[in-house]
């Protein structure tokens, strides 16, 4: 009797595993795999990120701004924001120059959303951070800011 019970249980667990792996997330996985730009997120510097995204080299601009603290006491949580005053922004990128992978986040904006986003990133060490705005007319603009990271909790 125990054997049969075990067998039944095993059958049931295999069935649930198949369900979990095969049926429901299949569409989500396909979409994610198709859309996630791993080349851009694995790039080591800004030029490679731009190449992976098929964009031209960014030009410095005062219309783009990057917000963040001058000194971040905890590199694990650094609030960063990117904004652009020009209309027609398609994408906003946040990059941290000295992280293992430069690109942190890429936001794709519709016309209903203001080109002004904020999030929090991790920073391994003091570094320049960049906000890059990609406009509908093909222009690529950036702003940069230096953020010092105090590790070890000494508080500077």
């Amino acid at each position, binding site marked *: 009797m125990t054997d049969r019970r075990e067998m039944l249980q095993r059958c049931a667990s295999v069935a649930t595993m198949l369900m979990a792996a095969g049926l429901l997330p299949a569409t989500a996985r396909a979409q994610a795999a198709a859309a996630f730009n791993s080349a851009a997120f694995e790039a080591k510097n800004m030029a490679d990120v731009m190449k992976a995204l098929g964009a031209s080299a960014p030009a410095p601009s005062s219309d783009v701004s990057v917000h963040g603290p001058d000194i971040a006491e905890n590199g*694990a949580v650094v609030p960063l924001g990117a904004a652009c005053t020009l209309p027609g922004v398609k994408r906003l990128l946040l990059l941290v120059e000295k992280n*293992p992978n430069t690109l942190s986040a890429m936001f794709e904006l519709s016309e*209903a959303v203001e080109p002004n986003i904020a999030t929090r990133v991790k920073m391994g060490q003091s570094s320049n951070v960049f906000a890059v705005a990609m406009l509908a007319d093909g222009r690529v603009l950036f702003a940069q800011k230096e953020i010092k990271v105090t590790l070890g909790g000494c508080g500077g």
Partner: protein
Amino acid sequence: MPDPMRIRAQAAGDKTTVRVLMAHEMETGLRKDASGKLVPAWYIQHVSAKLNGKVVMSAQWGPSVAKNPFTQFVVHGAKPGDKVSITWIDNRNETRTDEATVS
């Protein structure tokens, strides 16, 4: 099932500020645990925001977004009572969707 997100959407005139706090480990894949083994990467790759069922913002994130990610954006044309829904998908294909009402 992952923990729920906390979403606030506050309208001020035409502009609605949406703030989202997600519950996620956001492992980079570079950190080692106590025994010296690498902790495998586990992070949110996709985020999309819908206003009344229409996608207004989508994002791709790398592992360098902070743990329990916060994000904020401003959307035009939302009225109190409208629905804002946020969906994320991580690199293990776990996903979660939560909805909030504009106030």
